[in-house]
């Protein structure tokens, strides 16, 4: 087996993942915290005020990263769900289901901050435009996945059913992303572009990018923390889990 495949194979084993995640977690939490502080300080204090919205634009430092995360986490969840359904890898099931509540939280933050910003700027808390509606649908999809997962007793069957639902819901992702392009609506287009120049000044851009990175780290940290607990619960009968529990008691 080639080394990369071997590593993936090893990663898929719960005890190995548990130990690796345990070693990574302090770093991830630390870096995420530093990133969040730096990004927020940069965005809320250092970045200059916008020519049109003055200080109100600063909400993008929370709103935009959470919007990106809401989609990123959904894609992550669906990808893991796919792996879980096709190859029956327990770790993927756990990761997909551990990601769902985090994704729902980011989606909720995105909707809430957008709403708070929308009232003074657009003149309305909420409008049924394509971007907002599809993001709301995304939140409901997350809630559906979480609800389905908790409604089924057998953990593994539950995660497979929920993963299946997540896969069906993935049709919504391109709609969220392209909604501002496909329909000419109230929500503005993308500012930060992967290809081509971004439509934002450099001094305003860097805190946004720091925040984007920090939210990724935050996601990784909370995901690993959650997955560790879930794995321990799922494998409660196994020898390694017993050892972990015993070691926990001793310290």
């Amino acid at each position, binding site marked *: 087996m080639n080394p990369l495949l071997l590593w993936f194979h090893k990663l898929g084993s719960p005890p190995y993942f548990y130990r690796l995640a345990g070693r990574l977690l302090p770093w991830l939490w630390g870096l995420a915290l530093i990133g969040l502080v730096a990004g927020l300080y940069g965005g809320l204090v250092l970045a200059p005020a916008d020519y049109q919205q003055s200080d109100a634009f600063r909400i993008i430092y929370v709103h935009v990263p959470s919007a990106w995360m809401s989609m990123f986490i959904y894609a992550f969840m669906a990808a893991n769900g796919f792996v879980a359904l096709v190859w029956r890898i327990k770790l993927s099931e756990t990761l997909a289901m551990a990601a769902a509540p985090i994704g729902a939280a980011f989606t909720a933050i995105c909707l809430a901050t957008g709403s708070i910003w929308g009232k003074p700027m657009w003149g309305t808390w909420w409008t049924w435009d394509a971007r907002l509606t599809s993001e709301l649908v995304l939140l409901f999809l997350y809630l559906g996945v979480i609800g389905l997962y908790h409604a089924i007793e*057998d*953990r*593994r069957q539950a995660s497979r059913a929920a993963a299946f639902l997540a896969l069906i819901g993935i049709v919504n992702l391109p709609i969220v992303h392209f909604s501002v392009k496909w329909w000419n609506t109230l929500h503005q287009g993308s500012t930060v572009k992967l290809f081509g120049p971004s439509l934002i000044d450099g001094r305003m851009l860097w805190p946004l990018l720091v925040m984007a990175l920090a939210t990724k780290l935050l996601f990784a940290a909370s995901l690993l923390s959650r997955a560790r607990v879930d794995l321990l619960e*799922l*494998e*409660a*009968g*196994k020898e390694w889990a017993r050892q972990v529990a015993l070691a926990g008691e001793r310290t």
Partner: protein
Amino acid sequence: MNSPTPDEAPPLLQARGLTYLRNDEPIFGPLSFRLYAGDVVLMEGDNGSGKTTLLKVLSGLLEPSAGTVLLNGEPLTLARLSHQVSLLGHLLGIKGDLSPLQNLRFAIGLGGLRPGITPHQALKSVGLEGYEDVPVRQLSAGQKKRVALARLLLVPAALWLLDEPYANLDRDGIALVNRLLELHALRGGAALITSHGAYAYTSGTPRRIDLRDTAVEQAA
């Protein structure tokens, strides 16, 4: 398909190291056994020992956590398996709102018809003559079971998986099940039946598999 002599024929059903876990708790297994044409095997085990789950795994409804099921020497796929397997579970799969005849016609549509028998004849041979058009809801539990047994007679499956076939039946009914099993074995079919031990297959010499016994390798 060429028909090899019985000696060379692969077993109708073979389980190899079959294991099923639920929430990582083993339900049964590892279990290995073979079923040849003409076999009637009694699966013994207490309540909750995983008999029903085993039948579901063997019928293809559930996927085993480990091990394989071979059918005529070929690994299980649902499409191939279902042509040759008839499952009679705790739930009979019979609609209370319909008559026995309607239920059987549906079963034939779904599973096909064994040559040389009609729904009327099948109902007659399970002792339900005269009940053809009565809604099943109005029949007794034992009579409902007989409708399900009539379905077994009609559908051309070589392997019967019967979960507690004696439950709810009176003495005549038990004798009827045994008669059907014998007939099926004579015709070259095989059957795997579960029982918690209260009734037993009396005629012939049925082989027994005990679910509590892990790693049984029963050579025929």
